[in-house]
């Protein structure tokens, strides 16, 4: 307990508060720019902080890493361009809310999500990091395969209402996920000799195309503005109030985010998507999801913000990074002489707990920044389309280029933009496609790995307790909609 009190005193020294605020603002700016994610942001900031006191430098980096996600949600909501892959699901309801003139409310929701989701995640990280890390280690290839299957079963809920079109999109997503270097056999698949897709279809570039470029095309069809009403209704505080109206969804989304974050081999982009799909399934009015339902924004953003502390669990407690961003944060820690691992909690307790306290505080700083600055950005949606369309195209394609400094990536974004446009006109939703694209590789490679370890015996898929629970959950998830009222009572309580 002493160490936590000392850490609080340390964080409240002026230079650490300045580092915290600086990192937060820098992180939000990095997040707003598509193509510049937390990874690039941290690498660019390294020369600046390298001479600082290690704990202060880590506070700056931690704040940057944690807040870029909020920055990404701003562009996702306002102009349909995800700042980073983790904001993919925020677009689904955040932007439609904007079109209804409720952009300010959506921004209030996302800022509150950053505060609540981030705090819940941090509390779990602080209280039980070593325990959570041990839990994560119990997930082997078989468990990862089953987790991905459980996630894929959510597609069933997403496509409800337009089953055939939804399954076509999901299948397309799964097919696209097979493009590139096959990790298991070492072969290149479906690349047509084109090097830019040898690593697989690049996710952020595809997202930029599927959402931002498609959006620009749609907007270009009419001479109005994003907000179809000429004025904005509802503000930031309405978003905050709306947020707390859904306590059950907040808890579910936080848990999903934390779970996805803690598992090192599940990408951060899945957290928001899975929470969104789960919220839709649990909702009494799934039809409004994707059309500007505040609960969709809440679920997606709360999950992604809870995901980041989860991501740090294995990074700090085991020295194993859970994502690309975490890998870079790990590198930064090592440069400052803090070697993450099971021993770090005793050997460098002062630095680690200062970092944790600062990250909790960051959640609130984000909220304050969102309250003062973020909400004023909603006026962007009142700009006429002649102005906003070129702006979206320039910023998003520039971002797509900046990720690898490669022109072919812009082509990929444009191709996905065309695909998105065709899908939209044909009445398809891009969400199942995204789920397939994000989860396909995880299903495939872990299936192979499990069988390689077991020597071909399928018993590996149901031998552990975790496997059995995952199988049960998957069956329930698939059969749920057919269980009718019994299921409704079970999941949503008596009505």
């Amino acid at each position, binding site marked *: 307990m002493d160490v936590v009190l000392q850490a609080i005193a340390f964080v409240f020294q002026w230079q650490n508060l300045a580092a915290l605020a600086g990192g937060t603002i820098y992180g939000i700016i990095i997040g707003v720019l598509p193509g510049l994610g937390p990874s690039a942001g941290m690498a660019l900031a390294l020369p600046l902080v390298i001479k600082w006191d290690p704990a202060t430098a880590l506070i700056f980096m931690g704040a940057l890493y944690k807040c870029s996600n909020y920055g990404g949600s701003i562009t996702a909501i306002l102009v349909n361009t995800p700042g980073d892959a983790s904001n993919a699901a925020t677009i689904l309801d955040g932007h439609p809310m904007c079109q209804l003139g409720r952009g300010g409310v959506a921004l209030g929701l996302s800022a509150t999500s950053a505060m609540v989701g981030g705090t819940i995640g941090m509390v779990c990280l602080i209280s039980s990091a070593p325990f959570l890390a041990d839990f*994560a280690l119990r997930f082997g290839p078989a468990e990862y395969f089953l987790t991905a299957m459980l996630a894929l079963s959510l597609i069933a809920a997403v496509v409800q209402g337009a089953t055939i079109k939804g399954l076509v999109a999901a299948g397309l997503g799964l097919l696209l996920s097979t493009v590139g270097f096959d990790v298991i056999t*070492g072969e290149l698949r479906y690349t047509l000799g084109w090097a830019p897709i040898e690593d697989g279809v690049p996710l952020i570039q595809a997202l930029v195309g599927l959402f931002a470029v498609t959006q620009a095309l749609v907007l270009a069809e009419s001479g109005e503005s994003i907000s179809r009403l000429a004025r904005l209704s509802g503000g930031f505080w309405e978003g905050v109030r709306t947020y707390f109206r859904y306590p059950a969804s907040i808890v579910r989304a936080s848990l999903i985010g934390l779970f996805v974050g803690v598992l090192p081999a599940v990408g951060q982009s899945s957290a928001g998507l899975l929470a969104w799909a789960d919220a839709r399934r649990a909702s009494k009015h799934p039809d409004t999801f994707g059309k500007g339902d505040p609960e969709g924004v809440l679920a997606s953003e709360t999950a992604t913000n809870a995901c980041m502390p989860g991501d740090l669990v294995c990074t700090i407690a085991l020295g194993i990074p859970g994502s690309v961003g975490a890998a870079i944060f790990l*590198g930064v820690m090592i440069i400052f002489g803090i*070697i993450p691992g*099971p021993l770090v909690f005793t050997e460098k307790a002062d630095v680690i707990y200062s970092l944790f306290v600062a990250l909790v505080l960051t959640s609130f700083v984000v909220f304050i920044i969102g309250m003062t600055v973020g909400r004023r950005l909603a006026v962007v949606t009142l700009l006429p389309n002649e102005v906003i369309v070129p702006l979206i195209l320039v910023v998003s394609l520039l971002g797509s280029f900046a990720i690898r400094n490669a022109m072919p990536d812009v082509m990929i974004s444009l191709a996905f933009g065309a695909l998105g446009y065709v899908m939209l006109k044909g009445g398809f939703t891009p969400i199942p496609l995204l789920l397939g694209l994000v989860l396909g590789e995880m299903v495939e490679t872990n299936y192979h790995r499990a069988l*390689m370890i077991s020597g071909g015996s399928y018993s590996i898929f149901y031998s552990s307790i975790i496997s059995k629970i995952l199988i049960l959950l998957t069956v329930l998830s698939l059969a749920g909609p057919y269980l009718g009222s019994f299921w409704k009572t079970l999941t949503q309580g008596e009505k």
Partner: protein
Amino acid sequence: MSRALGIFFIVAAAGLLTTPASGADFPSKPVKIIVTAGAGGGEDTEARAIAPYLEKHLGTQVIIENQPGAGGKIAFEKFQKAEPDGYSLITYTFPKSVIIEYQGKTNYRTADYTPVFAWSRSSQLLVVHGDTWKTFGEFLKAAKEKPLSGGLSGRGSTTHLMGLIALDELGIKVNWVPYEGSAGSVTALAGKHLDFTICLATSAVSLIQAGKLRPLLLFSDKRDPHLPDVPVPKDLGFDMTYIPTLRGVEAPPNTPAAIVKILENAFSKAVQEPGFIEVAKKRKMVLQSVSSKEFGKAVADIYPKIAKLQEMLKN
């Protein structure tokens, strides 16, 4: 007359600008180091750590540019056609580029590049879970009884090639399980889903220190100063070839020797700066200066080795 003279001067000036062969005025503008992976990885961190000291000894600005994609292949192909003026250099974990050449058709050849300097060398480590075998002898006995499952940081990677060499020499069979990068295989080992993994020491150092994982063998001809207790094959009476990995920089094909000399000098001084040595120590890097000539020899030597191993990979 004066006009002719003017033209003469312009031509002469243009000539000066386009003939860097003498190297007399090198460097007169910023030097760019291309990293073949994303920001923040090992290659990137080392490049960024050395850059400020290189700036000091080169007397010009050093810019780091990340060109990730296809394991570095995109960057390698672009680099093959880069201007050989010493202003663009490439850094990567050798022999990654040679392995990519053997995996498919490429529009570059590592042998064409001009080696400049390498600063660190690392060797592969055989690691098991802390609850299992205590010595390499125990491990070998178990491996001969039934095939064990071994994690790889990637199919066809240096860890895979080293694993194949070891199997061949030790006469054991293994179920190889490929991952993307060593984080995956190390995690799976820590959770006891695998029996062992082969990785670089830096990937597992914190779990080794905490006693969760145990290193049993270092694939090198001499011990690692950071892991003095871990035996090398020679200590146990085995004779193996090794795939040592180097981190360094190369210049585009046909870079003039005078320019390479200037760069090599600057790098060799930069790696002796206490600030860089400090970072290297924290990252558990084994610093070892490899000159342009030695680097060139390492490149020439690796081709036949990897060619032979690629044959084994197909089986």
